[in-house]
């Protein structure tokens, strides 16, 4: 058993690009669900439409990289408007149904054989990250003992954590303002807010767009850090992992999604590495009849699910949440 490898895997994942993608996506969900109470189950849709906005612009249409970024962000905004206009006047559940359906529709369109010329079919698109990679100032990767990153990852985490920091700052600035107060009030009781002369629909739309833009940034960052845009990456699991990260950290807290995402990936990678080692080699720690090497990679998800259940029972407010706020719930 090599604990160094386990710790390296856990910390590298917690600080690495994958955690950043989920942190950004969860920041968006925090605006939607945590602050405004909008049930967006299709964050993966916002991610995929922005990602393919960039990839299609650069690869298919052969346009500049920065124009692709703009197209990607605009696509996320447009998606928010298209989803919001019919559903935000209705009860919260409708948004949930429509968003999850839309994210699946988008994923299937991007992976469809019929649109192979545009979206690249199930293999997706690549060759759009050249500009991003050329901006990399680092000469080599780093190995700090407990964490190690390749040259590309080092560049990605520099860009990624900067984006997370800017996004968190923006959320902090917005949520302490009267604007943020209106969002939180809408989460509590829409009609009360309406009776005080606030245009609830407009605020929900603004929140949906803002959170969708964070989702778009997450999607673009996701395809840049790996250099390819693959439709199957953007399945519903993506959204639910982001929700898991948000709930672990604590909804309606600025740093909740960020810390939640780090913990999520720390545990996923750490537990995965532990069980993979415990079941490999000539004389494994866990005997073959108990767990085989192929089962080991799945056990982390079982444990994660168990962990989430325990969290919801014993600390429903997440790491950062305020117990008092939760205690009042259900009236």
């Amino acid at each position: 058993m090599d604990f160094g490898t386990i710790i390296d895997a856990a910390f590298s994942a917690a600080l690495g690009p994958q955690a950043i993608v989920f942190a950004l996506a969860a920041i968006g969900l925090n605006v939607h669900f945590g602050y405004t109470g909008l049930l967006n189950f299709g964050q993966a849709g916002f991610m995929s439409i922005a990602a393919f906005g960039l990839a299609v612009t650069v690869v298919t249409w052969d346009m500049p990289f920065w124009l692709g970024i703009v197209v990607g962000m605009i696509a996320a905004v447009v998606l928010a408007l298209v989803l919001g206009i019919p559903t935000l006047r209705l009860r919260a559940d409708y948004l949930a149904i429509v968003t999850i359906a839309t994210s699946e529709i988008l994923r299937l369109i991007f992976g469809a054989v019929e649109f192979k010329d545009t979206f690249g079919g199930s293999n997706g698109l690549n060759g759009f990250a050249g500009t991003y990679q050329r901006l990399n100032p680092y000469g080599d990767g780093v190995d700090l003992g407990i964490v190690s990153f390749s040259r590309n990852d080092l560049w990605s985490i520099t860009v990624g954590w900067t984006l997370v920091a800017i996004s968190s700052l923006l959320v902090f600035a917005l949520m302490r303002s009267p604007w943020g107060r209106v969002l939180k009030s809408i989460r509590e009781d829409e009609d009360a807010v309406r009776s005080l002369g606030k245009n609830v629909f407009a605020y929900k739309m603004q929140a949906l767009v803002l959170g969708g833009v964070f989702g778009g940034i997450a999607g673009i960052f996701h395809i840049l850090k790996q250099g390819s845009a693959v439709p199957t990456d953007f399945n519903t699991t993506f959204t639910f992992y982001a929700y898991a990260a948000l709930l672990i950290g604590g909804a309606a807290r600025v740093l909740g999604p960020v810390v939640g995402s780090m913990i999520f990936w720390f545990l996923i990678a750490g537990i995965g590495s532990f069980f993979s080692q415990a079941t490999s080699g000539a004389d494994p720690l866990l005997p073959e009849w108990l767990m085989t090497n192929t089962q080991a990679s799945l056990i982390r998800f079982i444990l994660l699910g168990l962990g989430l259940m325990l969290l919801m029972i014993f600390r429903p407010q997440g790491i950062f949440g305020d117990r008092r706020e939760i205690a009042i719930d259900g009236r």
Partner: protein
Amino acid sequence: MAVELSEARAALANVSNEPGAAKPDPIVKGSNITRTFGGLKAVDVEHIEIQRGVITALIGPNGAGKTTLFNLLTGFDEPDEGDWAFNGKSLAKVPAYKVARRGMVRTFQLTKVLSKLTVIENMRLGATGQRGEKFFSAAFKSLWSSQEDANTVRADDLLARFKLDAKREDFAGSLSGGQRKLLEMARALMVDPELIMLDEPMAGVNPALKQSLLGHVKSLRDEGRTVLFVEHDMDMVRDISDWVIVMAQGQIVAEGTPQSVMADQRVIDAYLGAHHDTDITEIDVADLEAEADAELDAEAEENKS
């Protein structure tokens, strides 16, 4: 202000007691408002006028359509047909938030406090025209902090007036039922409405708090606002209202001063019941009625003088 008030009240003296009677200075004027739920005609109001500057009570049995009429007037529900105007401007098809901005603010039968916000945050939300509520200026505190401070001063004054200042930093969800009613009323005042509509302000409030709530409602009128409230508590209706509108089965069946309405046979039949003024443990009904009438007359005399 006092002169205006007595004028407004005096003006009502000449208003007929027929349903839908015209008022000398109506702030709300509506006609032919109907709303059906399935086969049921929940509201079918031929004509309604609310006098400016006085307290008008809307009473009637359960299911008479009082709350539905409230919802229709404030834009929370859409009527099948009908038109109504606030300060002479039509409110048909105007969304609820715009109705509130024009100065017609309501509270709810089941109080709607924002549980997970503190009391003072609940209050601040009520302020209108906040620069910090616009998305593009929200992120820059310097653009809205001075306005926020001014709103906070106003909110603190109102909290002190409603004796909620000790609860300033508590979550609104931790307040008692009566305190929630107070908070909702205070929050509505942050909007600075001309007409404040209270949906059962006394429901679930203990007798001691009821007294102070009565005082608060009167003080709203005394500072020049118009009050319209729905209530089942006849003591309250008798005590503070200047005019009473009675609804039954969606229609206005009678209106008038509290004294005249409570003596009106139609109202007694539809809502109050013959012995509404007597203690049910008493047996000698006739005696009590005579007593009550005498009392009412005395009160009427008092009000005249």
